[in-house]
């Protein structure tokens, strides 16, 4: 038990500048709402934390597991709809809906993982795309989920901790920060766990991993299942933050792409990668869009990001974090 807590919170094995950097980051985030008062600034920070959250979960299968999954949005959707529908139909408290969403996402992921992991590389990636698209189109097609009209969450007097509805962004800020920290600590535990090591071995070389006693297939399935469950958490948050969800909002292809892209550019397979990636993309997206005028200049941010991605593909597949590590290594010599 004690060891578990240590593993959860300890960053002992990371170099000092990382621990320092992380500490500074946490402090900045904690005091942020008191320093930045603009509604837009606060919204950007919340979105950043949300995508860092998404990235952390995706990093498990995509980074540590090495299996590029382009369908994470379906898990986000499962979480969002579990929360949305349960709250709408039965008035279920938020924190009850979260595990339900996670279980649904994990169960679906588990079921689809078995056939899907017969595939590798590109074909696996495309299959994940297909699965996510099929689910999205089903959610649009079905009436009981609200179809294309979506689900609207009834407005309640704030602050409301049962349904996590608040009047001011400050509450949402700490709310999403809490979720983010939780998943970060979980990933911190994961990367040091036997499963974490096994995933990485599988990523590096499946034959070698098998020769060391690792059940490659089962490891991939478990990693994918967990990522599914983690993705749902962010979806549940989206429901109560935006108070409205529909398949094009919570489950579109673009969201899957964005999540994967954030982590890959930031540095897949490292604990900080998702945070770096989100820190780069989300403000870029939100501020560039606002500066250039949202409607007419849609797309430049993604174009820049796509260029970064292509350059990284050609030069440093380990992403920005990979570049940082390389520089650090050079300095040490």
């Amino acid at each position, binding site marked *: 038990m004690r*060891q578990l807590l240590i*593993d959860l919170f300890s960053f002992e094995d990371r170099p000092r500048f990382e621990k320092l950097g992380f500490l500074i980051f946490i402090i900045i985030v904690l005091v942020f709402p008191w320093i930045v008062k603009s509604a837009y600034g606060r919204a950007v920070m919340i979105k950043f934390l949300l995508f860092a959250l998404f990235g952390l979960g995706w990093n498990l299968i995509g980074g540590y597991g090495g299996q590029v999954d382009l369908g994470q949005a379906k898990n986000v959707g499962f979480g969002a709809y579990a929360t949305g529908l349960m709250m709408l139909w039965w008035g279920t408290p938020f924190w009850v809906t979260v595990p339900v969403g996670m279980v649904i996402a994990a169960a679906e992921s588990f079921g689809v993982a078995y056939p899907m992991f017969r595939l590798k590389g590109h074909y696996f990636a495309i299959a994940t795309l297909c699965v996510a698209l099929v689910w999205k189109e089903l959610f649009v097609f079905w009436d009981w989920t609200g179809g294309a009209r979506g689900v609207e969450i009834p407005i309640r007097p704030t602050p409301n901790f049962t349904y996590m509805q608040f009047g001011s962004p400050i509450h949402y800020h700490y709310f999403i920060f809490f979720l983010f920290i939780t998943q970060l600590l979980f990933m911190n535990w994961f990367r*040091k*766990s*036997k499963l974490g*090591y*096994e995933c*990485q*071995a599988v990523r*590096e*070389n499946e*034959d*070698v*991993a*098998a*020769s*060391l*006693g*690792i*059940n*490659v297939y089962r490891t991939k399935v478990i990693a994918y299942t967990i990522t599914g469950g983690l993705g749902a958490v962010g979806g549940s948050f989206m429901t109560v933050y935006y108070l409205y969800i529909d398949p094009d909002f919570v489950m579109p292809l673009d969201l899957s792409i964005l999540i994967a892209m954030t982590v890959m550019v930031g540095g897949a*397979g490292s604990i900080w990668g998702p945070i770096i990636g989100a820190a780069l993309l989300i403000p870029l997206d939100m501020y560039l869009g606002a500066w250039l005028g949202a409607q007419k200049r849609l797309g430049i941010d993604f174009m820049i990001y796509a260029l970064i991605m292509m350059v990284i593909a050609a030069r440093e597949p*380990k992403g920005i974090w990979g570049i940082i590590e390389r520089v650090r290594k050079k300095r040490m010599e």
Partner: protein
Amino acid sequence: MLLEVKNLVKEFGGLVANSDISLEVEEGRIVGLIGPNGAGKTTLFNCIAGYYRPTRGKIFFGGEEITGWPPHHVAKIGIARTFQGMKTLPNLTVEENVMIGAFCRTHERERARRDAHEVMELLAIREEANALPKELPIALQKRIELARALATKPRLLMLDEIAAGLNPLETKEILQTLKRIKEERGLTLFLTEHVMEFIMTLSEMVMVMAAGRKIAEGPPEEVAREPKVIEAYLGERYAQG
């Protein structure tokens, strides 16, 4: 008898890679497997280690039948192997490479780390624990692979061309290393090799394969003189000089 292979046949479509192979490896011995390229040695290895399912025949380990078992099962029961070419896990440190082997026998990270360091010490690579394998010379990388396999606490260690790419000095070193770890860990070694001096010096017994069949078996000096063996190697024999 630690490892027994009975009438193993492995076919790939129309191609017969292994034909009616039977062999026995006694516990505590060092057995070598030689043969010209394409003789089917690696196929045999892969069948034993679980990467291929034999078309026919049976394999026994420690009396238990393991025919068709998947690789991770075979590893758990005590057969470790190395791979042809450099198969270190490239983006993980030396320590992490070996720890993954150690995780075969434990769930706890600290235990895995301790076991890994023990093995790294045995193979004199402990100093490089935090390096990445690709930064290290080939001879060291071979020791990393050995350490990793050893960390799974095997009874039988199968080596696929471990001496490939090493200069004579390094070959001698790895020969000594193997002898040492065998004694220290009470291992049985089953290895396949092209570097003749290495395998003939190390092995107590040698089997020869050619064209998918076993054509000779016995102590190294006897096997080297057998006409069938010389014939199978005719071209390579001259190349060896």
